[in-house]
């Protein structure tokens, strides 16, 4: 059987727990949990919103669809720019080491505003046209991205190792910095390799 002192100890413990519970709402007003690591996600999905079915062997005049996703874990609402660019194998990609974007011209821009701990996916429809092949070289004259046409005139030589005419469509992630009132490269990009073929 418990002694009176045992009962007193139990009741004191219950009292302390009760007082702690009553104080939790007030403590939450002032206590700030340390922020976790802040980062943004950038990913590309196939036409079925899955990591499969990416276009690879592409043909002129055919429309291709992928989805580009952005996830915000920056600790607050964020304003992103997604810049779509197109290159052949000799042109520069963004430099992740020095956080420098590619100096190629942006062919299409998305503006995406996302809450913290949320993500958004945008469709990327593209169609290559005015495609020609001659002397171990292919040329892509135009690209139509989400209905916006751009003249690119990109050339790609025959790649003997990978046997194909390779191009890349890639998306850079930029973020708006309120302090400097400017968009800065967020050092993230995703890309898709495209092998240009005469017919599918």
């Amino acid at each position: 059987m418990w002694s009176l002192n045992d009962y007193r100890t139990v009741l004191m413990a219950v009292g302390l727990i009760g007082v702690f519970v009553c104080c939790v709402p007030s403590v939450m007003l002032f206590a700030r949990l340390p922020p976790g690591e802040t980062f943004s996600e950038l990913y590309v999905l196939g036409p079925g919103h899955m990591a499969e079915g990416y276009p690879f062997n592409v043909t002129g005049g055919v429309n291709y669809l992928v989805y580009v996703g952005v996830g915000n874990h920056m600790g607050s609402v964020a304003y992103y720019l997604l810049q779509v660019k197109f290159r052949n194998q000799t042109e520069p990609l963004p430099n992740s080491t020095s956080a420098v974007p590619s100096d190629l011209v942006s062919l299409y821009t998305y503006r995406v505003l996302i809450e913290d701990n949320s993500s958004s996916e945008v469709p990327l429809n593209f169609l290559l046209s005015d495609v020609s092949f001659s002397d171990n070289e292919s040329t892509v004259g135009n690209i139509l991205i989400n209905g916006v046409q751009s003249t690119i005139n990109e050339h790609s030589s025959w790649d003997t190792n990978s046997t194909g005419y390779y191009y890349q469509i890639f998306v850079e992630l930029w973020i708006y910095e309120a302090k400097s009132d400017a968009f800065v490269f967020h050092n993230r990009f995703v890309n898709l390799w495209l092998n240009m073929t005469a017919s599918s």
Partner: protein
Amino acid sequence: MRFWVNVLVVSLLVVCIVFFVHTAFAVTYQEAADQVAEADQTLRNAFNGVLDAEKNGANVSALLPRLTEAGSALTRAEEALRIGNYSDAVNRAGTCKSLASSVTGDAVALKIDAVAASGNWWIMVLFSVAASVVFTGVLFFVWRWFRRGYLKKMLGSRPEVTG
């Protein structure tokens, strides 16, 4: 003769209307570019307003769809400007500005509400203190009641010899 003069004057008027009125209302590249730049700045200001409201504790979820719509309008305005469709660029820039301005207004209102709500922190503290005091008091009375019963029971019991 007078009839043909009238016909000539009316024809001249029609030609003037077709050419000069169009020219008078045509949008130049610079005008369109200015409108697009203004829309871009308005959208940034709206975003800064939303960010500020969120930092002050406001729930800004309801504002983001409109802000995203404004962003899409700005993207289309820039594309229209790029392909030389200046009047379309101006229209879309106007849509962007209108949406962004409404978001800015709502963000300010949300921020004011959030700041006012956070100014009532003392009510929460008062509630915590009062709840703690009441809880401790009730526990004290429970303890006293229990101890009295316990002692009464112990004192009332008789020793028994077993074995």
